[in-house]
């Protein structure tokens, strides 16, 4: 008897051609489906395995280090899929309405209908502001890495890496190896938290060892590494940008380091706008003090037909993204009535559980510095886009805004071009501290289309699949 769920020729759309999106596409193609793969990038690989432009000659080993094999494998897998998928590079999925995705390629708009949508939209840096982070020369940690990887450039001549998390050490080591001057690595997390988190970190012994090796390499290159620091200010001039960074050491002494660039980052946060616009439910994660879209182990969101994979749903890293992309595609196939190998599902779920244990360990070892927000000086800029200070945000709290979207309406925090990507988490902390309420009740910035800026000159193509 025919399975009533079987859709004869299902239209499956994947957003993102990073590790999760590519593995999802591969799984679907293996099942005889031709998915549409939408990606903002000009080439596959996502941010983590971003390919360098044509004409660059560095080897996989020099570009991706210990991850060279995985990067190359992902790129090869994608090349093998090219003729069997409908690939749309340089295309932004900017809106979603019912079972239709709205796209923008250059200035061409189009719509694509779907039976199932796998959102593998990746992550961006999670940022905690510091006084002066709006100065020229301050970059996200991810930016520092991309400059090096995809452009063979360093963001400055003397770079300070400040924040927390394994990526801080990884990028600093990559800079050091490439011959760029690393002025200091300033980690807000204390060393002892790392020791305490070992029981969870051991879930991925290989990654743990790689992390230790990085620190060792940096120390051998005589890079100054400070742990347990408190950022004070990125000093400089409005016209010329960053000149020094001021911080307090773990012993409470105030120090400065001369630099012309700062790479700033505290782990990653999911790019969950599309999931939000699809009206997926979100849940609050107590440990990391942020909201994630709800999904089951296999990637089903709270909305039928919407699946979430990779760092766009939960920031577990590239290896986990590959597994979750694979798993989400299997979930799509299962829900469409196709047979899938249960052995694969079990294996992938077990892998994801180990990744999740490790993520929890990392979050313990390198915690989000929530208390920094309460200590912001009144003139610390929270929202870089709109130049909104902590004082202005606190004034909105004083007039009754204790929920983030309400505070946004009155203070303009998160109202700028980036739509709160980079200030939203910190703004929530400022409000929670100022109002004396829990961060969970402050909420999260509600997504509003377009996911990224939409050009008014946009011309529409004929609707597809109508």
């Amino acid at each position, binding site marked *: 008897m025919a399975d009533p769920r079987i859709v004869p020729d299902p239209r499956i759309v994947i957003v993102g051609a990073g590790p999760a999106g590519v593995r999802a596409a591969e799984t679907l193609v293996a099942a005889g489906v031709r998915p549409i793969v939408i990606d903002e990038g000009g080439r596959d690989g996502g941010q983590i395995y971003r390919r360098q432009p044509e004409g660059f000659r560095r080897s996989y080993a020099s570009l991706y280090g210990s991850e060279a094999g995985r990067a190359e494998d992902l790129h090869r897998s994608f090349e093998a899929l090219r003729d069997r998928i409908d690939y749309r590079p340089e295309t932004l999925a900017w809106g979603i309405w019912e079972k239709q995705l709205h796209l923008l390629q250059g200035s061409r708009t189009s719509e694509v209908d779907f039976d199932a949508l796998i959102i593998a939209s990746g992550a961006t840096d999670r940022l905690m502001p510091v006084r002066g982070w709006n100065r020229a020369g301050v970059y996200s940690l991810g930016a520092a890495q991309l400059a090096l990887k995809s452009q063979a450039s360093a963001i400055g001549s003397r770079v300070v890496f400040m924040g927390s998390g394994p990526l801080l050490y990884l990028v600093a080591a990559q800079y050091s190896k490439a011959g760029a001057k690393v002025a200091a690595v300033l980690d807000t997390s204390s060393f002892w938290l790392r020791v305490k988190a070992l029981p969870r970190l051991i879930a991925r012994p290989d990654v743990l060892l790689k992390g230790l090796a990085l620190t060792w390499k940096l120390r051998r290159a005589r890079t100054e590494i400070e742990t347990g620091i408190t950022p004070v200010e990125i000093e400089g001039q409005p016209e010329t940008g960053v000149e020094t960074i001021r911080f307090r050491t773990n012993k409470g002494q105030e120090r400065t380091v001369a630099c012309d660039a700062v790479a700033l980052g505290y782990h990653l946060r999911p790019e969950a706008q599309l999931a939000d616009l699809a009206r997926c439910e979100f849940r609050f994660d107590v440990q990391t003090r942020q909201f994630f879209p709800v999904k089951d182990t296999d990637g089903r969101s709270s909305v039928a037909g919407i699946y979430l994979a990779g760092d766009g749903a939960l920031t577990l890293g590239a290896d986990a993204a590959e597994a979750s992309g694979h798993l989400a595609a299997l979930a799509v196939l299962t829900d469409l009535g196709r047979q899938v190998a249960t052995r694969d599902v079990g294996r992938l779920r077990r892998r994801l559980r180990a990744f999740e244990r490790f993520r929890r360990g990392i979050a313990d070892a390198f915690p989000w510095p929530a208390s920094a927000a309460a200590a912001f000086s009144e003139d610390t800029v929270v929202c870089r886009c709109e130049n909104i200070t902590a004082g202005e945000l606190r004034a909105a709290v004083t*007039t009754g805004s204790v929920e983030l979207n309400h505070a946004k309406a009155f203070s303009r925090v998160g109202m*700028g071009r980036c739509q709160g990507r980079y200030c939203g988490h910190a703004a929530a902390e400022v409000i929670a501290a100022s109002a004396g309420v829990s961060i969970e009740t402050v909420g999260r910035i509600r997504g*509003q*289309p*377009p996911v990224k800026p939409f050009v008014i000159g946009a011309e529409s193509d004929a609707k597809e699949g109508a």
Partner: protein
Amino acid sequence: MKPLQADVIVIGGGLMGTAAAFFLRRRGRSVILLERGLVGQQASGVNFGNVRRQGRFLPQLPLANRSREIWGRLRELLGEDAEFLATGHIRVCYDPSQIGVIEAYAQKARDYGLDLELLSANALKARFGFFGPEAIAGSYSPNDGHANPRLAAPAFARAAARAGVEVFENTEIVSIAKPGDDFQATAADGSVFSAPIALVTAGAWGGALSQQFEEPVPLAVHGPQMAVTEPLPYRIRPVIGVSTVIPAEVVYLRQVERGNVVFGGGARGPAFADTRRAYAVPGNLTGQVRQIRRLVPALANMRVIRTWSGIESYLPDDIPIMGPSARLSGLYYAFGFCGHGFQLGPGVGDVMAELIDRGSTTTLIEPFHIKRFATAEAARLVSA
């Protein structure tokens, strides 16, 4: 629970309710203002921010003129101006047949004290420079302008509270009745508010309350489709609208001093009073931008960074409900402003306060009386 008592209870803390509470207090009445969420969040907070008189239903101009006078005195009255700027408002048309329509309107508007200046295509170009070639004529209203909708109702609410109005937010009224001399409004948490006079300014939720007094109205809810661009050098001073009979061409835009261009118009989106959510529909934006660049071609290079919607209420004749109840003494209504209530807000507050305080008002509001729906035809509309 002992009821809280005042001279007037105002139900609904949008611009109409907050302004009415403010002006009632100035007339010496004690006032309780009840708001189910936070003040100024729904239609009052999400609209375009147009302080426009031209193009309105002509009998509404006396009310609009009275309101415009208050907009100019906001700083004096409230201590803040809600970013009101009298930048002028210009309506342009694309179709030669529409020139006669705007000329005729300008002629009649003069009788209501609104002076409009008619501009040829050349005058438009010489004066403003940014219109596209399809704009062949325009009508300029120099004393109209725009304000920030997010700020207006909260500004009235703050001033009202300072003057002694008791403002209750997060207080949803689930039932209202007049068992004796006083109205009794019961909130979801069981609190009871009591007054001899009740004013319903509950916007999209107003119909549910008028229904409780057996005065149903055919209120429909829709979401305006609003968008805003990245900040750009401040160059477009007047508010701009289109005079047309083609609904898709009805777009409007303004630039705020910070630089963002705000626009809206065209299709409406879905709105849900029960969940208090309204949605900006992506497909509407793709239609709007086509009209926006027809109006101001240079905007084609610029980018929209955010869209939004909100819950607005509409009546089939496209004019609001305003005035006393037809059935019950002491009961008053001001809701259902059909997407054009923002400019009227301060004037509606002032007029309702006068009406409640004096028993009559010097401003024409008769066309907006709720009794127009108390007919067989209206009953049919309500049940349909």
